[in-house]
């Protein structure tokens, strides 16, 4: 009896297998379904459905393409290097890709992306509306390879209660005056029982090291992306200072252990719990804070040695891979999706939704100057906190003093070399000078090997 049951099971499995292979029985194994009414099929990689800001603009662009008799495939999921490589290898590339601007530099410099100069001319795309530095970071050897989105400008967030408690004023956090900043950090720092219980000022190493170097006027990577200056005396100086801040506040092990214990995205975050005095952070975090805590904060700009405001920008961009069959449409898509009108409509939807849910809106920074101004002037409304109003105003204004990582054929290796060096220094294995010397060697070798 058992035997017969087993036989039946085996036959059933076999039958199912045959049915699948030859029937596509459940339709699951079948291949692409396309809207057979449109004549052209436009494929995107790296974007996908998202929040209102993404979807509204995508809908507008989809309509524009529909008028050109094309339908749009926008599969979910962010950009993946492996997936893109596989597509390149099989010569079956998408028509447009969406990825981090830092990556575009590497791909562009290796010839995998199509320069947009001709499409910009044909579609009369006004490049002046986009932020110069954002466009520059996707320009290699004079050719533009991407249309930028988002800037995420960095400002210093200061927690009022901690400043008050330590007798520190926001003016003391001026990064122009390193000695004063160091004193302020030490005043706000607290520890007990061998553990850090409050960080005064977090210099955010290694991520924001380029910002520290820039405050001394140094570009760690030249504008053409071909020369690294990681062991320049100013770089060593900046790194030594930032490291000193960490050493003053418990040393890296304890400092980092404490940082990791923060409830960064939650209701009991480090601002709410007064666990930190001040630290530089990207703009999107203001939205998290506005939603989660009533603790008061002050936005302070990062300044260079001359006292001027500076900030570091990063974001995404649209690019066209070599072998894309619908380059004209790709250009249209990029143009519509980043047009000031599209941004405005999208942000308005988000703003209205947030207001309906009772949540504050802390600005969107689009890499399109025209859009930014329009959004701030026409859309942004105070939700009752002067601190956030000032923060948003600062974020809008500071972008013009921003800089980005330039496009480079070995951008990833350069960044890795810098990170590794700083991590080695932080764990005590090397001095700043030795670490950066090694980084410079590694980065420059990689760039030299990769450039043509």
């Amino acid at each position, binding site marked *: 009896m058992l035997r017969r049951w087993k036989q039946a099971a085996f036959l059933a499995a076999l039958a199912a297998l045959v049915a699948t292979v030859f029937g596509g029985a459940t339709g699951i194994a079948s291949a692409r379904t396309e809207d057979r009414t449109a004549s052209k099929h436009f494929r995107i990689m790296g974007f996908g459905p998202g929040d209102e800001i993404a979807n509204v603009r995508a809908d507008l662009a989809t309509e524009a393409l529909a008028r050109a008799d094309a339908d749009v495939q926008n599969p979910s999921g962010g950009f993946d290097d492996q997936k893109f490589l596989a597509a390149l290898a099989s010569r079956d590339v998408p028509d447009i890709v969406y990825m981090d601007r830092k990556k575009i530099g590497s791909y562009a410099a290796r010839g995998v992306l199509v320069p947009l100069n001709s499409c910009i001319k044909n579609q009369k795309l006004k490049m002046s509306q986009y932020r110069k530095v954002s466009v520059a970071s996707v320009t290699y050897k004079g050719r533009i390879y991407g249309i930028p989105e988002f800037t995420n400008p960095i400002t210093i967030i200061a927690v009022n209660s901690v400043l008050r408690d330590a007798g520190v004023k926001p003016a003391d956090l001026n990064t122009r005056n390193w000695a004063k900043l160091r004193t302020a950090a030490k005043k706000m720092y607290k520890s007990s029982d061998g553990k850090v219980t409050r960080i005064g000022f977090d210099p955010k190493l290694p991520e924001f090291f380029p910002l520290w170097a820039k405050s001394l006027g140094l570009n760690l990577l030249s504008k053409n992306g071909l020369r690294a200056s990681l062991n320049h005396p100013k770089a060593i100086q900046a790194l030594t200072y930032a490291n000193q801040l960490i050493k003053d506040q418990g040393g890296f092990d304890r400092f*980092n252990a404490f940082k*990791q214990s923060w409830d960064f995205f939650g209701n009991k975050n480090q601002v709410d719990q007064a666990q930190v005095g001040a630290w530089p952070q990207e703009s999107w975090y203001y939205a998290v804070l506005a939603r989660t805590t009533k603790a008061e904060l002050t936005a302070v700009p990062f300044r260079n040695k001359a006292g001027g405001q500076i900030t570091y920008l990063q974001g995404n961009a649209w690019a066209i891979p070599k072998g894309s069959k619908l380059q004209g449409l790709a250009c249209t898509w990029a143009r519509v999706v980043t047009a000031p009108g599209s941004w405005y409509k999208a942000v308005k939807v988000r703003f209205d939704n947030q207001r309906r849910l009772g949540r504050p809106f802390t600005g969107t920074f689009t890499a399109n100057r025209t859009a930014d101004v329009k959004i701030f002037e026409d859309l942004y409304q105070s939700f009752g906190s002067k601190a956030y109003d000032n923060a948003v105003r600062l974020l809008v204004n500071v972008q013009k003093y921003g800089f980005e990582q330039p496009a480079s054929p070995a951008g990833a*290796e350069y960044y890795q070399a810098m990170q590794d060096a700083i991590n080695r220094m*932080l764990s005590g294995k090397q001095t700043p000078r030795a670490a950066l010397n090694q980084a410079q060697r590694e980065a420059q070798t990689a760039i030299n090997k990769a450039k043509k």
Partner: protein
Amino acid sequence: MTRARRWLSGFGKRETWAAYLFLVPWIFGFLALTAGPMIISLYLSFTNYGLEQIAGIEPTKRVGLEHYHELANDDKITLALKNTFVYTLMMVPGTMIVALALAMVLMRISKALGDVFRTVFYLPQITPPVAVGVLILTLFNGSFGLVNRGLEFIGIQGPFWTTDPSWIKPALAIMSIWAVGGTMVIYLAALAGVPKHLYEAAEVDGASAWRRFKDVTLPMISPALFFTFIVLTIAGLQTFTEAYTAFFGPGTGGAENPDAALFYAIYLFREAFVNFHMGYAAAMSWLLFAIIMVITLFQVFVSRRFVFYQGQR
């Protein structure tokens, strides 16, 4: 008959053809889907295959042994190999011992409870590696993590597991051993297959618990021990996911990717998919292959004396 002739004459026997018939699925799959890519990757290790070649922008050129020379001179390779070996040396014996101990304990308690505990101990195996990576950072936090708080409770000052280079690999090894469920399950299956009358006979002969273990259990489960020994070693030498998620993934912010966690597979992945040095990565793969092959042969040779099969001819 000469040896070659005797070997060839084996093909005349019906048994041989039957065997090959049973092997057909694997042989077909190997030729169609496995051998090709393996050979191609070997070939690529002698070329300049990179991003431009993948995209068809530039032709693939042979560069001979250049990549292998590079391997010999690359400091990071030495570092990666050292990290990988140390980790494997910690992980393999640790996992085998803990798994066997757990399996034996589980065999001795009542059935219902055993079912529950078995599932519990298997749970780590089905925790997504991504979650494990996050967990490593939380549990092993030097100041506030549970591990150190537990150690403090018994008066030991725990190290900074996630930032101190000397303690990162032990932390990762412990996390691996925590995922002991898979190995444990294999040992459970093996222990269940030990003929009961052997234990009875040994008891009748007056053997102590330790002797029963040494002379009955171990030999009878030696096929499973052999298997896990080899497979765990191969897995250890290729370890990637947990360490990558904890120390190199996009969510870490870069402050935790120290040299001490640079395992060979992670370095390989980076060279292939971040830096696009595919040819070099291929050379790295085959270097690892050779190393694993040598180690496995050594293991097989050493185990020959200790593995006992009931059914082998």
